[in-house]
């Protein structure tokens, strides 16, 4: 059945005239000055950390005691790191504590207190990696989110603002991740288009030595669901299996996706 909208469109087509090229330029210029209302703004790293802890807590209460021991042991390290102390982890998976979930609550509250009073950009070393206080909170948010997946046996429903923070930080570290994997690509740019519950678009200059380098025209555009991308980064999904769409230099796209889990801890 032909609708009124179909008839209108057919009339527009029938005219058979294109607007002047300046109209597209005007559209793109105006678009560059605003973002779609659907793009989700990230929450703060501290809110993300506390949200991830709150989500995983009920799962810990009824979950594997060994995992409880692990997260408590890890939180002891996180508290030390956010205080600026140096503690080494030889085997991340082997970290354990005798304390229980209530003690973990205290540790999480302690981390939050320390983080709230710390300079967000203060350098810390966490998991053997140089980062800052906010970076540490995002790393730990990723880990807690991953534990929640493991305990629930499925991807938990996650606050979109938290996913937006996780994915934006992930985009920022992709150049370093590629360098860690031995495939740096200075001078190239990847566009990461994250779809789903926390949509966002990131042009990532892939030079690990110069984070301030302005993004050039994307050599590749990678379209992927934001949750899938975070699962790849957490080493809970295979980049070769998830649904992705690559336009441009597909080999570069594969390298970017393959390097995304370079900083996953377990």
């Amino acid at each position, binding site marked *: 059945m032909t609708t009124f909208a179909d008839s209108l469109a057919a009339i527009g087509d029938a005219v058979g005239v294109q607007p002047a090229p300046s109209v597209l330029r005007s559209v793109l210029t105006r678009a560059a000055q605003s973002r*779609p209302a659907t793009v989700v703004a990230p929450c703060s790293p501290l809110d993300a950390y506390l949200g991830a802890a709150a989500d995983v807590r009920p799962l810990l209460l009824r979950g594997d005691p060994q995992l409880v021991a692990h997260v408590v042991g890890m939180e002891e390290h996180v508290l030390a790191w956010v205080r600026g102390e140096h503690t080494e982890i030889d085997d991340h998976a082997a970290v354990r504590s005798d304390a229980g979930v209530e003690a973990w609550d205290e540790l999480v509250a302690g981390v939050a207190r320390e983080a709230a009073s710390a300079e967000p950009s203060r350098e810390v070393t966490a998991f053997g990696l140089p980062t800052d206080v906010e970076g540490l909170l995002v790393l730990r948010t990723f880990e807690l989110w991953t534990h929640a997946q493991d305990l629930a046996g499925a991807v938990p429903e996650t606050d979109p603002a938290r996913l937006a923070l996780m994915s934006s930080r992930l985009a920022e570290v992709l150049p370093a991740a590629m360098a860690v994997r031995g495939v740096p690509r200075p001078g190239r740019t990847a566009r990461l288009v994250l*779809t*789903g519950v926390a949509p966002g678009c990131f042009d990532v200059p892939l030079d690990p030595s110069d984070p301030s380098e302005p993004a050039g025209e994307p050599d590749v555009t990678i379209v992927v669901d934001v949750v899938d991308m975070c699962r790849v980064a957490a080493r809970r999904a295979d980049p070769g299996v998830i649904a992705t769409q690559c336009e441009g230099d597909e080999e570069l796209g594969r390298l970017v996706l393959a390097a995304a889990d370079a900083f996953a801890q377990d």
Partner: protein
Amino acid sequence: MTFTLAVVADEVVLARLRAGDDRALAALYDEHAGMVYGLAGTVTGDASLAEAITADVFVELWQHPEMVAGTLRAHLAVTTHRRAVEIVRHQRGTDGRRPQGDRVAAVLDRLPDDQRAALVLAYFDGRTYREVADVLGVDDATAKRCLQDALRALRDHLAGDLGARA
């Protein structure tokens, strides 16, 4: 919703728009700008107004992709028509004239009275089928048929005109 191929393809592009991918916007523009511009031109009869409407329609789509229901093509057509009608109404309120192009005026002159009235009311004034039926004193089905015949005549005339110029 019926899952036609167009809807499925639209979902992929819309997902990219929702993420803020301006390349998806440019691709959409390439596909639909002619239709939007042509439609705006037939309603307003003014090329510069049609260009302004075209730009506004695509910028609005960029800013609010969540407003799309159905196919993108239908959404763009309805949005364009609504905006063009608003401008025509505003101009008519200002200077009393009905800003139609010569090509559209030629079609209107040839149409039977009931079709011309339906076209003017719905296409240029943005009235609904029900409102057209009330004004013409006919039932909804008759108003709808009149309008569809008139729209088809307009489309065929414009397409024939294009063919003659080619």
